[in-house]
């Protein structure tokens, strides 16, 4: 029989920390601080709207681009929150989560051999999606001493004449790093100088804890025409399972992306789209309340690690904290595996998000204070034992 498989996909390596996941699966009693999704329920009014839409029998495909009413509300939201101006009819596409947006943007833009700059540690989909689109991923190793923010010299050093796209994964999963206005300014200059495009994944934009709030790179003068803006409902509105996101970009890019979306997906889930109209229009207060609670937990974890004497920079975004475990002289994966085996606490090795995550672990604070406390007490025990031994 002939090989049934495509060579590119078979060559993409599965997550490097497979073994770790297998151990987690064997330990159902373990306490986890390992998830990448909110612990809050989707606000009830959003769920209620979904039920209502089902009762009304709104169970058909929407247009390929998504419900017009929803896109109009999103355009309003983006203006209200980030000062972005997009035409909801020509510059926006509803997708199956931010995930689909990332995938089809890369597929619509890359030619074989085009290089994509990927600051790491970062979410795991950019690299395989780049490869599947025929592009060449070029990691940029971010540094803890810079609080895992992207520095202009790091960017400039990675640019070649094949570079086409810079991924901007901020606020960042797994580090919690953000890029403030002053951090973005020199990046914007380089992007223009080298004629790059930016794929900015701002799925955690609403979960930012700085005084100035989230700043989108698309809001800088001259950037809208070279930015593909990804957002969605998963994190901000606690709607991961609804599978709904959106992309905003120049019309010529959206047009091609819509072709891929039309043939591969048809349209984003209809029920989710109706529910999302309520989420985007009426839930600013709910989101603010979740943000405030995340922020309290963030401070709690920071203070716990400070007390333990663990090196940890202050993360200002998402719901992750990324402490350093380098002092213990073992790899992130080894640390996490031992913590799991010896104390039954699951956290994720930084290396799951790129080689530059070595020496750190990702701890999620999408958990109640009680869970955080219980897990942190065990982590504290573990660390004390390590220091003694």
């Amino acid at each position, binding site marked *: 029989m002939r090989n049934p498989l495509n060579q590119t996909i078979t060559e993409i390596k599965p*997550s490097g920390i497979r073994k770790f996941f297998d151990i*987690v699966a064997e330990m159902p009693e373990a306490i*986890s601080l390992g998830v990448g999704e909110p*612990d809050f329920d989707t606000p009830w009014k959003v769920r209620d709207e979904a039920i209502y839409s089902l009762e009304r029998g709104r169970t058909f495909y929407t247009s390929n681009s998504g419900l017009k009413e929803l896109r109009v509300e999103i355009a309003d939201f983006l203006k209200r929150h980030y000062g972005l101006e997009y035409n909801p009819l020509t510059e926006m596409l509803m997708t199956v989560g931010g995930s689909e947006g990332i995938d089809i943007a890369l597929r619509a833009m890359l030619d074989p051999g085009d290089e994509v700059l990927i600051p790491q540690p970062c979410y795991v989909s950019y690299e395989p999606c780049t490869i599947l689109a025929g592009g060449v991923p070029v990691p940029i190793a971010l540094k803890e001493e810079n609080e895992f923010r992207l520095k202009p010299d790091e960017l400039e050093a990675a640019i070649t004449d094949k570079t086409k796209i810079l991924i901007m994964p901020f606020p960042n999963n797994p580090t919690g790093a953000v890029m403030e206005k002053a951090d973005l300014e020199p990046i914007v200059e380089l992007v223009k100088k080298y004629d790059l495009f930016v794929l900015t994944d701002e799925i955690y934009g609403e979960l930012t804890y700085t005084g100035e709030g989230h700043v989108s790179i698309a809001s800088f003068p001259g950037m809208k025409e070279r930015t593909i803006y990804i957002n969605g409902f998963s994190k901000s509105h606690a709607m991961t399972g609804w599978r709904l996101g959106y992309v905003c970009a120049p019309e010529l890019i959206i047009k091609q992306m819509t072709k891929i979306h039309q043939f591969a997906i048809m349209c984003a889930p209809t029920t989710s789209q109706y529910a999302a109209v309520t989420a985007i229009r009426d839930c600013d207060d709910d989101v603010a309340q979740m943000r405030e609670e995340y922020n309290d937990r963030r*401070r*709690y974890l920071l*203070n*716990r690690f400070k007390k333990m004497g663990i090196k940890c920079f202050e993360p200002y975004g998402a719901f992750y904290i990324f402490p350093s475990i380098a002092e213990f002289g073992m790899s992130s994966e080894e640390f996490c595996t031992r913590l799991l085996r010896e104390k039954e606490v699951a956290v*994720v090795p930084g290396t799951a998000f790129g080689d530059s995550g070595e020496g750190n672990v990702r701890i999620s604070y999408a958990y109640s204070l009680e869970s955080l*406390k219980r897990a942190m007490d065990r982590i504290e025990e573990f660390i004390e034992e390590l220091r003694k031994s």
Partner: protein
Amino acid sequence: MREKILTYIEHNSKIDLSDLAMMLGCDQATVMNELEAMENEHIICGYPTLINWEKASVEKVSALIEVRVTPQRGMGFDKVAERIYNYPEVDAVYLISGSYDFMVSIEGHTLREVADFVSAKLSPLDSVLSTQTNFVLKKYKDHGIIMAEKHVDEREKVSL
């Protein structure tokens, strides 16, 4: 700061004060001082516990009683309310806008006990014009907490 402390202890009065301090980004002494001050100012009026008596297999009957009264000259409703809230059987008394004046919540061990309270104590009060007793059949949610179910985390253990 005060509002944050109150919001947390309203939902969990057993919260560990050092945890609370860490969440608020201040030291524990500050939180303790604020709490003490708010107790003295009677902003914090008590630390009761929310109990699902049904689960504890203890018989309890509660009722919400709508009460219409004639306010007393010079003292309005407050004096009448005092006559009512001083009974230990009475759980809560609210002055209400709408077609009656007070909502009185009472709790007893039996239906009889509650009915007796209404007929023997509440109704005969001089200023009480009429009462309507609504027995509670089932408590679904109280003080923002859903009584029936304990929340379980159904998420996958680890996701990237």
